């Protein structure tokens, strides 16, 4: 562990049976970097800062918000869960170090930092006594919460003389307990703390580690590439069965497992691209029945079930990821032109033919339509649709430049503030500068993943990493830009920053795979450098590093 925060590079390590001893001053700094195992000092400090932030923010919520607003039933369990998650994510670093991880640490550290920074805001939402209630119960719970807030504030601030004037002879009344007073609300809140909702946060670091440990063996990805039909058929078949027979309001048993299918489809598409990238790079080569059929089967078919269940957002995510992989896989500008044209046609069609999409666009442009020109029924309908947007806007305005603080503000009054509107929750808590910081951290995270693709020499791995990165990047931008009405809101989940267990698991697994690819590339580069320093260019000498 002494080298975890790297200060001194280790010497003399290498594959079994080969003893390489290289004098330190003879090696370029770039290659030395690939040899170093520990996380960089800057990243290490950033992780420590973020983890302290996580603890302090939770503390500020528990001591500052709970007494004022009350808390949802099961809030203590949620606190414990977040504590375990904190430890689990931090333990990931020594675990990776001990397993000999040599890849890019940024792809591990940045999502953990993002998780640590954003999770307290979600914690506040889910422990709020009102957030998870619905309908009239929500109204009642909201009223009780407000009454409680007033009483507790008065008790906190007023001196004895003023309290006497307020409470008179009757003394201090009982403090309202919103969740306990509203049975339905309490039941709802408890449901949100079921194992299905709690486990992903704790299991995600393990999923990342497993993804890394499994995928770092070259044979695993090679097997997948060579036998792509099998996982494709199984996943697509399962997907169709679920969508046709088990979906209720876009959910299966109260969960949305679709996110877990996306990495499989991306991996299959990467395999298709890797095997046929030469032909796909030529316009003439694409226009054959076999090739066109393969593109339809592996590129278009996985999107169909999403359209069936009207998960327009995820279909955009998948299609966008496929398109990006195609660009990276073929390296041809004309594909960008073709896809841009297709994208424009699809967008125009969607916004003209699909009422739901058209409404979302209108909501993004101007939710505050002048209802003097609408009928009463139209007004009521529009008011119901824009309800969420006006509260998201209120979050943004409330946060202003620096935000209200940990769990402060009133983002919990907005429906889906932990999902679609998570960025506005962050805005309410941490303001414009906080959300810009989050956006920059996420941008850095995405770029770190793409940097792995940039360095990768294998076509399959490069496309795979690009696709997995896009599965994380596209939802982030859709939700972030949708939250501030720069794009229509689609309801896709953002990994690490927003609520969504399946998304968190899928993203963690994907990062594990990307970490494995990065680790292998770093190892390969290290051996190449070592070989080169002894005998010149390894390729010239016929040396192949496996």
């Amino acid at each position, binding site marked *: 562990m002494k080298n975890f925060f790297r200060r001194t590079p280790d010497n003399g390590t290498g594959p079994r049976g080969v003893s390489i001893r290289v004098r330190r001053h003879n090696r370029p700094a770039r290659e030395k970097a690939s040899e170093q195992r520990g996380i960089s000092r800057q990243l290490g400090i950033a992780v420590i800062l973020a983890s302290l932030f996580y603890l302090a923010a939770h503390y500020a919520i528990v001591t500052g918000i709970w007494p004022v607003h009350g808390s949802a039933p099961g809030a203590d369990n949620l606190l414990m869960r977040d504590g375990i998650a904190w430890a689990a994510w931090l333990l990931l670093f020594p675990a990776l170090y001990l397993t000999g991880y040599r890849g890019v640490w940024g792809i591990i550290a940045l999502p953990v930092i993002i998780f640590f920074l954003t999770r307290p805001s979600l914690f506040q939402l889910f422990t709020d006594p009102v957030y998870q209630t619905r309908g009239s119960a929500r109204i009642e719970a909201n009223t009780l919460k407000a009454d409680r807030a007033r009483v507790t504030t008065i008790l906190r601030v007023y001196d004895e003389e003023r309290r006497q004037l307020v409470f008179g002879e009757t003394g201090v009344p009982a403090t309202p307990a919103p969740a306990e007073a509203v049975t339905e609300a309490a039941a709802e809140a408890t449901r949100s703390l079921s194992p299905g909702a709690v486990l992903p946060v704790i299991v995600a670091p393990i999923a990342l580690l497993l993804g890394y440990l499994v995928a770092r063996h070259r044979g695993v990805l090679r097997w997948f590439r060579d036998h792509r039909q099998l996982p494709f058929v199984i996943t697509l078949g399962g997907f169709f069965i679920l969508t046709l027979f088990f979906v209720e309001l876009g959910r299966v048993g109260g969960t949305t497992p679709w996110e877990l299918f996306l990495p499989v489809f991306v991996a299959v598409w990467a395999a298709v691209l890797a095997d046929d990238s030469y032909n796909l790079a030529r316009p003439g080569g694409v226009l054959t029945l076999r090739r066109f059929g393969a593109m339809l089967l592996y590129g278009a078919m996985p999107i169909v079930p999403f359209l069936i269940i009207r998960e327009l957002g995820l279909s955009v995510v998948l299609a966008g990821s496929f398109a990006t992989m195609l660009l990276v896989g073929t390296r041809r500008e004309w594909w960008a032109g073709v896809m841009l044209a297709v994208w424009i046609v699809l967008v125009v069609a969607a916004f003209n033919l699909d009422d739901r999409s058209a409404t979302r666009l209108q909501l993004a442009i101007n939710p505050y339509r002048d209802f003097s020109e609408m009928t009463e029924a139209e007004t009521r309908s529009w008011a119901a649709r824009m309800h969420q947007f006006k509260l998201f806007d209120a979050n943004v305005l409330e946060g202003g430049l620096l935000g209200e603080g940990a769990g402060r503000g009133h983002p919990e*009054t907005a429906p889906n503030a932990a999902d679609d509107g998570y960025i506005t929750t962050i805005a309410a808590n941490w303001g414009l500068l*906080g959300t810009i910081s989050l956006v920059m951290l996420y941008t850095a995270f995405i770029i770190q993943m793409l940097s792995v693709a940039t360095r990768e020499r294998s076509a399959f791995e490069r496309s795979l990493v690009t696709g997995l990165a896009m599965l994380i990047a596209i939802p982030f931008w859709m939700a972030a830009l949708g939250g501030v009405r720069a794009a229509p809101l689609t309801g896709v989940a953002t990994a690490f920053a927003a609520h969504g267990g399946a998304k968190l698991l899928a993203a963690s697994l994907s990062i594990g795979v990307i970490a494995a690819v990065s680790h292998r590339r770093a190892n390969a580069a290290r051996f190449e450098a070592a070989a080169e320093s002894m005998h010149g260019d390894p390729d010239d000498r016929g040396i192949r590093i496996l």
Partner: protein
Amino acid sequence: MDFVINVLLRVVWLVLGAGAAFGVVRWLRRAWRESEERWTVRISAGMLVLAGVYTAAHVRLLAQRDTIEAGREAYAVFGDPRRTEMRRGEVRGWMLDCTGNDANAFAMYQERDGLIERVYPIGEAGANFIGGGEHADERDYTIETLFGPELRRPANFLELGEPHSAGRDLELTLCREATRVAYERLRQSGLPGAVIVQDVHTGALLAYAATGGPDTPPLGIKRYSPPGSVFKLALSAVWWDNNLPDDIPIPCPSSIQVNARGARISNSGGVDRGEVIGPEGMLVPSCNTAAVAMAWEARRRIGSEPFINAYRRFGFLPYEVTPPTVDSAGFWRTSSDAWSRRMTPAPSRLRISAATDSAEWAQMAIGQGPVDVTVAGISRFIQAIGNGGVMLPPTVETRFAIRPSQGERVMRETTAEKLQHAMLAVVDHGTGTGARAQLGSTRWRIGGKTGTAQVAGQRDNGWFAGLVFDPQGIPRFSVVTFLEGGGPGGGQPAAISGTVARVLITDPPPGTDRN
């Protein structure tokens, strides 16, 4: 503690965000130069562009704050849980009266049926000006609403980090008992009306009471009426300010013809008083015909311009054709832009120019014709008389009353003293004796001027514009009472003024010497 933690947490956000931005730019610069894998680098650059788009969109929302708030306000009728929670859960500051005592607060919190509610102890007496009544938060003529941001501002540094911070108290210059009594007397009269009491040395409003429901604009600030004979004070001020003689005999016949077509102005009751001596002689019995003669004589001697300038200084805006509807000069001394914008009175005004004919000139002399004033406008003028000729901007905020502004001299000190003397004489043995009785055995005195304004088709409006003098003979308060249809001014308006003055004498605001 929470505040400090949250400051540190913000610092963490900013440090990590800045570090990420630095790392992104550094990586992109290097990759753009060195990497052969162009598309991944281009896509990475695209991510940075999207970060810029996000920032611009977020800033745009903040810049559109007013528009968005207006939109939310419009759609609030369809439900807005955030507003509900924040309104119901908030703890605004209390509105304290001139004593600063919690027990005398105009607005406070009290338990009612197990709920803690915002209450307004003087009830409807303050509904037209202070707050309270149904939909108190939606009306925008009250201190409660217009000083809302002030009342919601965190009370101190430690409150900044609280989810529901306790608001800051607002110390008002208004005295609760005087306001309550004034309203009660107005209510008993059964007539629309208003009472405004000011501290003449600070401009502070010590009492404001007006009839009218919570939904009606404050009558004392927004309602016009001719001032009637109260305006003779302004005429006298012009006279004395221009060094016209004190002891000139002025005829006071029962009526006087004011134009060639035979139009006449008469004294109240058609009384012929022969001659009166100077402006005070005209003011004490409120002789209309003497006022007309004085106005004509003064115009003959000094011309129209000094009149126009003087009336402007007194706060009565002169105009020739189109009556002004907005007074561009600041009326209130206040920290609230909303208050200043919403509660600036309709400008008191009169149509006057060098071309004004003699009949209209005559009408103006007795406060009739093209003269429109508000109670607030008259109150400010009387305050200037009581303050030795220096007019101060009125205020309802104690912080400004403690440190009054320099004010503006609108008449000579000697003029003000002569007016004060005349006003005392009016109450001692003139038309305003009705105010004197209320002071009883106190050593305080009240002076004033009555006014009975005729409005076509209505009963006469009654005015009493008074000054309350302490036992040392120093003016302390101005008291102006207006009763619509409640003329003559020497009747109910004078009695109400006396009653309110008595309350302030008995229980004077801090800083006032009772003896």
